[in-house]
C-alpha cells in the first residue's frame, strides 16, 4: 500500500523538512505527496521532481485550518498504510487530530524507521531514545526532519492530480497571519545556524549576531531563555519546545546549554560555543569553545570572517 506525505510548501517550493519526511516515508511504500493551501498548485511541479515521489495530489487553495485538513486526510486514509508529515507547526497541529479521528495513537517526531510498525523517537528532550512498536493498523506519524537526510530535490517525475475534497466542518475560521519575511535561510533547513542566549541582554543586541549570520549565509536562532526574556520571537527558539536543528555548523553565543536547548541542537555536525563562563554546560557538547565576552568576540568574529 502507498504512503501519504502531507507537504509544507512555500513560494512555489517544497520545504527541506518535507523532503526529509519523503526520505523517511520511502522506506514504507510508494510515496504520494499531498499539497494544500495557497500556492499548492504552484508548488506541485517541485514536489513531482523530488526523488522517490510517485504521485502528487493538490488540494484547495485556501488558508489551511486543522479541522478541514484533518477531515480531508481521514477521507484519504483508506488508501494508505502510513500518513506522515514533517514535525513542523503545521504537521504537529493537524496529524494528532487525524490520528484520533482514525482511533490511532500518533507517533510524534520520529527519528528513525525500523520497519513498517516500529519506529525510534526521542523522549525526555532527547535524553532517551525509545524504540516503539505500534499495534494500530494504520500509522500516523510526524517526522523529525533533522534525523533524515532530505530526499534529493531533483530526480523524480511524479504525476500530478487533484486531491479529493472534504467538507469543512466549519469549526474555525482563518483571520490572518503575520509571517516575517526574511532573506535568511529557514532555521530547520540552514547549513549554518547562529543562536543567541540570555546573555545577549536585549533584542537590539541580536543585530551583532545577524551581521555574522549575513556573512555566513546562516539562520539566526535563540535559546528559550532569550525568548522568555523577550529578546527574540518564539519562532526563532531552538530546543525541546521549539525548533530541532542539525546544521553543519551551530554557533551558540551566550547560551549556557540548558537540557532543553541541547535537545534542539546537539545533533549538529560541528558546534561552536562562545560564552564568558567557562563552566557553562554548553562547552561539554561544543567541538570548539571560546571563553570570551560575546560583545567583544562576536564583532571580532564578524571582522575576521569578512577578511
Amino acid at each position, binding site marked *: 500500500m502507498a504512503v501519504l506525505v502531507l507537504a*509544507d510548501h512555500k513560494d512555489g517550493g517544497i520545504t527541506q523538512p518535507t523532503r526529509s519526511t519523503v526520505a523517511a516515508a520511502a522506506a514504507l511504500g510508494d510515496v504520494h505527496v499531498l499539497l494544500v493551501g495557497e500556492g499548492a498548485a504552484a508548488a506541485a511541479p517541485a514536489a513531482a521532481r523530488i526523488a522517490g515521489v510517485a504521485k502528487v495530489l493538490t488540494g484547495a487553495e485556501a488558508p489551511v485550518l486543522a*479541522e478541514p485538513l*484533518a477531515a480531508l486526510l481521514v477521507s484519504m486514509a483508506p488508501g494508505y498504510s502510513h500518513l506522515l508529515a514533517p514535525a*513542523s*507547526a503545521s504537521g*504537529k*497541529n*493537524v496529524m*494528532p*487530530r*487525524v*490520528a*484520533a479521528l482514525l482511533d*490511532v*495513537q*500518533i507517533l*510524534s*517526531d520520529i527519528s528513525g524507521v525500523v520497519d513498517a510498525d*516500529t519506529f525510534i*523517537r526521542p*523522549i*525526555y*528532550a*532527547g*535524553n*532517551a*531514545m*525509545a*524504540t*516503539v*512498536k*505500534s*499495534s*494500530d493498523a494504520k500509522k500516523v506519524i510526524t517526522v523529525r526532519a533533522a534525523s533524515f537526510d532530505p530526499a534529493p530535490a531533483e530526480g523524480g517525475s511524479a504525476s500530478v492530480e487533484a486531491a479529493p475534497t472534504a467538507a469543512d466542518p466549519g*469549526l*474555525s*475560521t*482563518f*483571520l490572518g*497571519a503575520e509571517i516575517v519575511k526574511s532573506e535568511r535561510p529557514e532555521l530547520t533547513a540552514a547549513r549554518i545556524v547562529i543562536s543567541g542566549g540570555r546573555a545577549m541582554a536585549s533584542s537590539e543586541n541580536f543585530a551583532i549576531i545577524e551581521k555574522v549570520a549575513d556573512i555566513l549565509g546562516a539562520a539566526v536562532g535563540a535559546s528559550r531563555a532569550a*525568548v*522568555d526574556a523577550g529578546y527574540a520571537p*518564539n*519562532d526563532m527558539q531552538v530546543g*525541546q*519546545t521549539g525548533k530541532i536543528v542539525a546544521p553543519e*555548523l551551530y554557533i551558540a553565543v551566550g547560551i549556557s546549554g540548558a537540557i*532543553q536547548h541541547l535537545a534542539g541542537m*546537539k545533533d549538529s555536525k*560541528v558546534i561552536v560555543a562562545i560564552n564568558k563562563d567557562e563552566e557553562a554546560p554548553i562547552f*561539554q*557538547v561544543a*567541538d*570548539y*569553545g*571560546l*571563553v*570570551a565576552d560575546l560583545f567583544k568576540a562576536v564583532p571580532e568574529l564578524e571582522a*575576521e*570572517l569578512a577578511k
Partner: protein
Amino acid sequence: MKVLVPVKRVVDYNVKVRVKADGSGVETANVKMSMNPFDEIAVEEAVRLREKGVAGEIVAVSCGPNAAQEQLRTALAMGADRGILVEHDGVLEPLAVAKLLKTIVAKEGPALVILGKQAIDDDMSATGQMLAALLGWGQGTFASKIEKEGESLRVTREVDGGLETVSLKLPAIVTTDLRLNEPRYASLPNIMKARKKPIETLKPADLGVDPTPRLSVLKVEEPAKRQAGKKVGSVQELVEKLRNEAKVI
C-alpha cells in the same frame, strides 16, 4: 463559562533523566516530579480569564497515578476551584488521555478546555488535538494570545515564520505555547486554601475507557554521546579551525 484544565505529572524539567540499565525506560523512582510546565501556563490562563470576568468555574483534571493529586493541589493553589483525578498506574498515551478527558467533558460541560501544547516527558504534543478531534471541536494550538469575542474565541498561534490568528467556535480546545503568559507562584495562603478544595477520584473503568497503550516500548537507550571538544584561545584561532580543520566555512 466553565473552563477545564488538564494537568500532567511529569519529571521536573530540571532533572536530567537517566535511562534504566535494562533499557526498559527511564528512572523515575526518587526523582522530583512537577506539573508539566505548559500545563502551568494553561492553569494560569484559565485563572486570568476568570480575573477578566470571562471564565467561571475552573476544574483541573489529571490522569495518572494517585500522586498526581500533588499537581492537582498545585493547580488548586494557583486558582482552580476543584480537581478530578482519573487514577491509573500504567502508561497513559495521549489517545487514552483524550478518551478519558472526553468523558470528563461530557460530565462537566465546559465551554473551553486549555491544555499544555506538549508534555516534557513523552514529548508527544498530541493530547489537545486528539481531544478536539474526539469531541468534534475546533482547536487553537500553540496559542500565544486568546480573547473571547461573543460566542467565539480569537486565538493567536505560534507558527513557523511568525503568527497566525484563527477564530474558534465555542466550545473549543486551546493548547498553550510559551509566550501566552508567565504562571504565578501560588501564595502560602492560597496553598493552605487549596488543601480544603475538593478532589474527586475516578478510575478509567468508571468512565468506560480502555486505557491500554497502542505502542509497546521495545527498548529505551541513551542517545549517542557528544564528546567535548577543545577550547580555542582567540577568535582568529576559531575561524582558522573552522576553515581548515572542520572545513565548515
